[in-house]
Structure formats: C-alpha cells, structure tokens
C-alpha cells in the first residue's frame, strides 16, 4: 500500500496498467486497492499542479495568520471548519507558535482577497486578529520546482 501511495503522490495520472506492472499486481488488484483508499478517505482527491503564475499572472495567493479564541467545547475545530468552508480558502492548518490557524487563500486579484479578509474572515466572532502575507513568487510547490530544470546529459551507453 505504501508503494502505491508513493507512486500516486508523484503521479496520480499514471495508467492503471503501468501501476500494476510496477507493483507486480493485476490491474483489478490495483483498482480495488485504490477504491479502498478512496473509500477510507486516505486518498481525498487528484489534482494537476498548475503553475498559477504562468496561467494567470493577476492571481493572488495569501497566507493569513489567524489568532482565534478557542471554544470551551470543540477547541479550534468548529471555527477552523467554518473558515475552511469558504471556497476562497485552499488550506487551513492549526499551527503551534504565535498564532493559531494558517489560512491559505486564493483570489483572482488583490481586492478579492482583501475583501474576503475584511468581510468574511475578520468578522467571525472568535477571530481575534489576522495578519495577511501575500505571495510574491513561487519556487517550489507540492514537491515540484517551478523553474523547469534542464535534464543533465548522460552518455548513451556505459558499462
């Protein structure tokens, strides 16, 4: 199962037939294993990793450090889920250290993100403060470098 997940993490678009050969399984086995991982919530979904700066130069990503007051019952979970529900929000993490929630927000421009923070995020009752930091440039995302690396040449036949 570990090998299967490792391969899919690198390339979820790999054909089932290739997966079967790599893992020494039948295609039916592979499909059953993937179906189980999906049903168990181990595989949540499949994405293409897009170079968003190239795709839409105006797009904006912000990392927002949010301090909240935890609730007596449920701690941070209810408020975190409430924030996560907004479609602008890409990721929400509970963090150790100087703030509580790290919220990654995508917008088509600066104004959109700003208005999300002002109108939606900071107005939630238990949110104490928001510190918004905008992405300037991406170097590596989901394990992939943005600059296309030149593949170094190897000799074509060696002992």
């Amino acid at each position, binding site marked *: 199962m570990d*090998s299967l997940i490792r391969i899919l993490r690198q390339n979820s678009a790999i054909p089932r037939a290739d997966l079967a*050969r*790599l893992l020494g399984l039948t295609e039916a086995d592979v499909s059953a294993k993937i179906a189980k991982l999906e049903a168990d919530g181990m595989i949540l979904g499949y994405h293409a990793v897009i170079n968003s700066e190239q795709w839409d130069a105006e797009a904006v990503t912000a990392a927002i450090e949010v301090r909240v007051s935890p609730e007596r019952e449920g701690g941070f979970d209810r408020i975190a889920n409430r924030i996560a529900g907004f479609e602008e929000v890409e990721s929400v993490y509970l963090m150790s250290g100087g703030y509580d929630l790290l919220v990654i927000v995508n917008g088509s421009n600066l104004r959109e993100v700003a208005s999300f923070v002002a109108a939606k995020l900071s107005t939630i009752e238990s949110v104490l403060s928001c510190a918004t930091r905008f992405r300037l440039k991406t170097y590596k995302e989901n394990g992939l470098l943005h600059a296309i690396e030149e593949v170094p040449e190897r000799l*074509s*036949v*060696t*002992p």
Partner: protein
Amino acid sequence: MSSRIASHVRDIPRSGIRDFFEIVQSMKGVVSLGIGEPDFVTPWHIREAAVYSLEKGRTGYTSNLGDPRLRRSIAKYVEKNFSIAYNPHDEIIVTVGVSEGIDLALRALLNPGDEVLYHEPCYVSYSPSIALAGGKAIPVTTRAEDEFVLRAADLEKAVTPRTRLLMLSFPTNPTGAVMPPDELAKIAAFAVKHDLVVLTDEIYSELTYDDLPHHSIAALPGMKERTLFLHGFSKAFAMTGWRIGFACGPNDIIEAMMKIHQYSIMCASTMAQEAAIEALERGQRSMEQMREEYRQRRNFIVSSLNDAGIPCHLPKGAFYVFPDIRSTGLSSKEFSLALLKEKNVAVVPGTAFGASGEGYVRCSYAAALDQIKIAVERIAEFVRK
C-alpha cells in the same frame, strides 16, 4: 615501424561497450537502456555539502588514505550495514571509485603469471585489469538456469596451484544476480582451503530488492583477514561522476595499495570526499527512495519483457535485467545492432561481459519509466518481426 605501444597494453582488446557506444553516438533519437549508471542526479543535500566545502575553501590535498573524517564515516557505515569492523586509521583507503580500488588491489597482490578467478558474465574491467597487473584471468561461467549464482563446485574445477585471488561482485552487473548465503559460505570455505585472497566488489550491495538482506563474504567467519572489501558511492547514492570509492581490508594490503595510490593519484578529490561524508552520514533516506523506484521499474520491465515473449528472470539486485534473446536466432551482437538500426533502441550485447553472455542482452532500468516503456514496446515489435 614497430608499435610504440607497450605490448601488454596492445594485447588488451577495447571494451565491447565502447565500440557499441560509438555507433550509438552517431545516431539520433536513440532510446537507451544501455546506461550503467543511475538516472537520478546526486541528491541535493549531497551536492550542497560539496558546494559548502568549496565555499569554506577546502581545496587542498587530503591524507593519502583519505580524509580521516571520511574514513571514520566509512568504518561506521560498513560496521552498521555489513557487520564488519575496520579500523579507520590503517584498514581503509579512499579511492577514485571502485575501479581504482580494483586496479590497486590487483597491482598490489599479483606476481607475474598469478591466476585470478572471477565469475562471468561480469563487469567489463575485471579481465583487462588482471592482465594489466600481470595476472592471468580465469573466468568461471555462471548460468541463467541457476540465476547466475556462482557455484563453489565450478571454482574447484578452475583452481590451480597458481591461483592467488578470487574476485566476486554481487549483485552482479550485468545479471543482477545475488549470492544465497549457503553458497557464499561454501565459497568462503573454498577460499580458505586454497589460501586465496578474495576481492569483493560491493558496488551494488545497497541495491537488493524485496527486503532481501545483502551478505558480504568479508563478514563470514575467518574471511576478514583474507578479504578486501571494495565499495563506492556511484550506484547507491547516484554519484558516478564524483569518482569516489573505498577499500577496506587487512592492514598489509591497504598499506601496499596506499603505496601505489600515493605515487599515482595522491588522494581522491577532496570535494568528492566531502560529498561522500554527507552521503554516508545522511544519505540513507534518498538511497532508499531511489531503491524503491528501481524495484518498481524492475517489476515493470521484467513483466513487460516476459509478456512480449522475451524470457527474462526477475533479478534480485543491481539495476539490470538480462533477458534471453536466443529465440530470435540472432547472436547478442547481431540482436543489439539490428535493434539499434531498426528500432533506435540501445541495449548492450551480453558478450560485452564475457563470452558466457552470448544469447543475452543487458537492459538497464536506471532510466525514466516512459523511456523504459517505449524501449520495451519497440523491442517487442522487433522480436515479433
């Protein structure tokens, strides 16, 4: 005019791989399964350590035996992974790859006419290196039906009073063979019985698959004092171009090798030694990731070749498969040349690794999966025709 090249050099044939390489070089768009090195770039943390050492100005010679820090790292690594304890002070020498280690060892140990036993098919340099050191190369054939395991009984047939050395290399380039522990023990007993020194080339030892533990002959009882353990960083840590390896063994042999090394090489490249320390101290995780990828590609290439009607056993180590192409009626060389010309796919004729490689070709799966896929499809088309 008589040749100005020394006769013992003139008598050595050029590597069959080199001839083949020159043909491939003259062609365009070749998909190559002929490459005997990792397709991974050296892991970044290792490259970064070398860059750091340059920034710090570590650009001088090291001790002839190699940087003491590296020798300590080697001692620790070999003890942990191979269960053999060597003293970093005088039982380890850092070499320019295993290739230099083999050359030093043969030159240090052989008197003219001494015989050296080794198993074939094997790495291309053994026979010529033995000849260059004045020895006589005595190949012992291993067989496909035996998964290319070396049998002590076959060694017994080849040993003579002139036999001085036994060279082993498991996992083997080009067959991917590994030695079962019981047969390795028989070979150790054979070496003791005939009082031979054993050179064991462990360059592929990290690359065994399916949780199969690797056993070095040097770790067997009574063997450390007669075994020279040769290893390097090229395959496990994807560091072929750094040219860095090491030899561990009895102090008298290391001392003799050091004499040759100090006059011919001085010391291995300091920058490469710095990178090697990083590889040994922190490279385990990257090595395991690469090994897992090789394992999957091995499964892929073996199952697709067999499905295409090209018999291919599942090798337990290294990153080569050695399929049987006899059903085509072609010799290894004819097969490889025709495949190259008709389908633009490069594999290496089995005979490049000794006469006993006839009927087989070596395919390296140290190549990207999409390249392996294309190559195997074309090989299948070629064989069908």
